């Protein structure tokens, strides 16, 4: 088995030990060797090692002392001690102070060493994974906290508006003016509904299992615009699409749908009423390797200060009544999950351009 991805640092004061180790394992592992503990520390500063092997008997510093010294600064690499004569108190020190994973007896046996390194690497990976999981968990908690705070507001606010309108309608004697209030209630209820749909999208994106299928962008865009086409705001918008697709591009259609739906809806929602004609230019260039998507509009545009914040959860740029500040956050999360990139350029009063690059899964 060759496993060149495993990076090993081996410290031994006897050069011939290093040489014979390299001779046996250099094809298998990525090996760095040195006779000096000072130089070894220098290497560790520059490069991340998975496994560190050290000889116990070295002049100046024992292997155990070396491990004890580097353990705090470099906790990740798994430590293995190579020792010629096992004396019990040295072994106790090695375990308690150096926190070594294994002892290797000299002269060492090829299979035994290979076995030790394989296990050490497994432990390294498990710990790294655990650390990543913890980070993910921390992020999830933080998001949940923010989510509950803002979602409770965004769910209650339209309801309280409805209640306020009802109070007002009850004070009204003229029956004819009730229609005006009913219309306001309708708008408020729609807003609440949009928010709930967004929450479901967010949940599907964050927790749902991704399914990779070949994507037909023409179909996808047709599907998405079909749903938006009937919004009254869409009437004044001219949407042009330029789609070129060669070969098979595989991705998660659910996430792509979220991206297209939010960006097109935003362009419709934030059109500039001062302009005679609003446009959305959508261009898609798909190859088996990746897909480039560009949304260009001549809408209201985004203030420079807001540009870096628009992808944050619940950030709403501008004091408009529409929008809960979750749409672009979901877009950003979906693109992250697809390992893609998004770039936005915008001039206030002129329009915005969103550029997205998504790699194919079968690249």
């Amino acid at each position, binding site marked *: 088995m060759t496993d060149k991805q495993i990076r090993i640092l081996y410290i031994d004061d006897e050069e011939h030990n290093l040489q014979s180790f390299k001779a046996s394992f250099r094809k298998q592992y990525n090996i760095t060797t040195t006779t000096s503990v000072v130089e070894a520390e220098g290497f560790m500063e520059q490069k991340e090692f998975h496994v560190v092997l050290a000889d116990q008997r070295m002049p100046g510093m024992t292997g155990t002392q070396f491990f004890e010294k580097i353990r705090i600064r470099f906790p990740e690499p798994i430590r293995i001690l190579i020792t010629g004569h096992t004396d019990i108190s040295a072994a106790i020190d090695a375990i308690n102070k150096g926190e070594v994973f294994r002892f290797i007896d000299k002269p060492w046996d090829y299979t035994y060493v290979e076995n030790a390194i394989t296990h050490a690497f497994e432990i390294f990976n498990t710990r790294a994974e655990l650390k990543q999981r913890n980070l993910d968990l921390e992020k999830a908690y933080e998001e949940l906290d923010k989510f509950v*705070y*803002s979602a*409770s*507001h965004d769910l*209650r*606010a339209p*309801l*309280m*508006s409805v*209640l*306020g*309108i009802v*109070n*007002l309608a009850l*004070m009204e004697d003229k029956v004819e003016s009730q229609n005006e209030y009913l219309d*306001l209630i309708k*708008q*408020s209820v729609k807003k609440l509904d949009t928010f709930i749909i967004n929450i479901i999208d967010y949940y599907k994106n964050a927790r749902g299992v991704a399914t990779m299928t070949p994507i037909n962008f023409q179909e996808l865009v047709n599907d998405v615009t079909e749903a938006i086409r009937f919004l009254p705001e869409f009437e004044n918008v001219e949407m042009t699409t330029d789609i070129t697709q060669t070969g098979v591009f595989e991705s998660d259609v659910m996430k792509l749908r979220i991206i297209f739906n939010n960006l097109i809806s935003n362009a419709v929602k934030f059109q500039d009423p001062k302009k005679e004609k609003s446009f959305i230019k959508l261009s898609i260039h798909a190859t088996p390797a990746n897909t480039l998507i560009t949304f260009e509009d001549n809408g209201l545009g985004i203030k420079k200060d807001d540009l870096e914040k628009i992808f944050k959860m619940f*950030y*709403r*740029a*501008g*004091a408009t*009544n529409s929008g809960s*500040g979750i749409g672009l956050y979901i877009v950003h999360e979906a693109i992250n999950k697809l390992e893609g990139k998004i770039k936005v350029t915008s001039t206030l009063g002129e329009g915005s351009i969103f550029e997205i690059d998504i790699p194919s899964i079968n690249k």
Partner: protein
Amino acid sequence: MTAQFDFILIDDSAFDLFIYEKLIIKSGIGNSVRPFNSAEDALEYLTGEGESLPPTVILLDLQMPGMNGFEFIDKFDLLADQVKDKIRIYMLSSTIDTRDIDKAKASDSIIDLLSKPLEIGLLKTILTT
């Protein structure tokens, strides 16, 4: 005749501004109502008016994009005493978060936190007693 007040409303929701303006006018406690859909605009207005501002009641929303209600209070506290003395601020919010409620209660500039939707009867009682 009941007492009348001059109101400033600060809320990012156009619905809520519309509703509260109508409620205040209909109930007869409003002499004038001036709505703002952003705290920044309201602050600019207060700064511009200065001491020429009549005694005013402000109904202030909490969660708004840009400057929120608490941030508005921070800026408001920096205004001259002659201006601040003419203004009574009530926070009006749908929040049920205890951190927000505690913060509003702890603020010297916020007289009280009223929950949405605005109960006009309650507001009348508060302002006239």
